[in-house]
């Protein structure tokens, strides 16, 4: 009887998607228009933050995660850096100071 289920499922109105399209466009274009006049600073910002952290803690550059969520009112830039445990970092800091 799956055809019957399909028939009824098909009948149920899906939510309209045009509003979704508009919202996504507005957000992406707001960001792209800024990028047109200004250089994209994100890669540089990310490198500098990682460099600052590396000055204090020995970190593995391969274990840095960067994620960006461009929103309408607010964007979130999350930089996740794995810090080594105290055992690994203590001798190094002692040597540095």
């Amino acid at each position: 009887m799956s055809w019957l289920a399909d028939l009824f499922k098909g009948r149920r109105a899906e939510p309209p998607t045009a509003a979704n399209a508009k919202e996504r466009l507005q957000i992406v274009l707001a960001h792209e228009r800024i990028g047109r006049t200004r250089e994209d600073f994100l890669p540089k910002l990310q490198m500098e933050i990682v460099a600052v952290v590396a000055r204090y803690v020995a970190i593995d550059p391969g274990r840095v995660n960067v994620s960006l969520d461009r929103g309408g009112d607010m964007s979130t830039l999350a930089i996740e850096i794995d810090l080594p445990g105290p055992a690994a970092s203590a001798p190094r800091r002692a040597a540095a100071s």
Partner: protein
Amino acid sequence: MVAAPPAGGAVQGVSMAEIIVVTSGKGGVGKTTSSAAIATGLAQRGKRTVVIDFDVGLRNLDLIMGVERRVVFDIVNVISGEARLNQALIRDKRVDTLSILPASQTRDKDALTKEGVGKIIEELSKDHDYIVCDSPAGIEKGALLALYFADQAIIVTNPEVSSVRDSDRILGVLQSKSKRAEDKREPVKEHLLVTRYDPARVEKGEMLKLEDIREILAIPLLGVIPESESVLKASNTGNPVIMDQESAAGQAYKDAVGRFLGDKIEHRFLEPTKKGLFSRLFGGRAA
């Protein structure tokens, strides 16, 4: 025929054509269909018009205009000096104020140069009112050259996210890379042409509304061309769709040309056609 003075403030006594680029960024949205229709429409209104195909390597305007069997020389031959401009221009047999300058099919886009295109446009300016430049898709050399000399731009946009985004991008290019922008003159005049608009799908909330596209791109609206079977019919036969005045698309293009020339014409084909029970049962879509 006495040509009306072109819009855009030409110097009196000196004949200067108005240069129009038809562009979109995205491919397949209807640039060539629109170029052919608008150039034909301008010529039908008595304007001396030439339409140039800038899609070197992927020539198609000749097919849409139905002159593919008459192509001898092309724009690249003219630029390289292998042919004179007059030899490459194809005179339209339907509208006597219209000619077509085809693109090359065998060469690549590097064969086009700014100097070469500039010379051709300068020469065409002497005895034409409008030069319509049919841009290739993308934002590479061919597209940049098509818009470089423009006084006005018709941005062809489908009610679909990738097309709207690319239109926005090409507007940015027009504002920074056109000759008018480089010379710091009055910017290229922008017109929005929405094509493949399906009012029935808009009503169901499946397709971006005209108001939404206008709000996002924020440029003056030249026209809305409804999704129509007649566009394929027109390309099958090599007749610009504006010649099919039975069809909604043909009428919508005619309206757009009228508006371009300053006529006050209300927008049509924005609401779904109300179907009676009979046509609902037996199909039949917009002509």
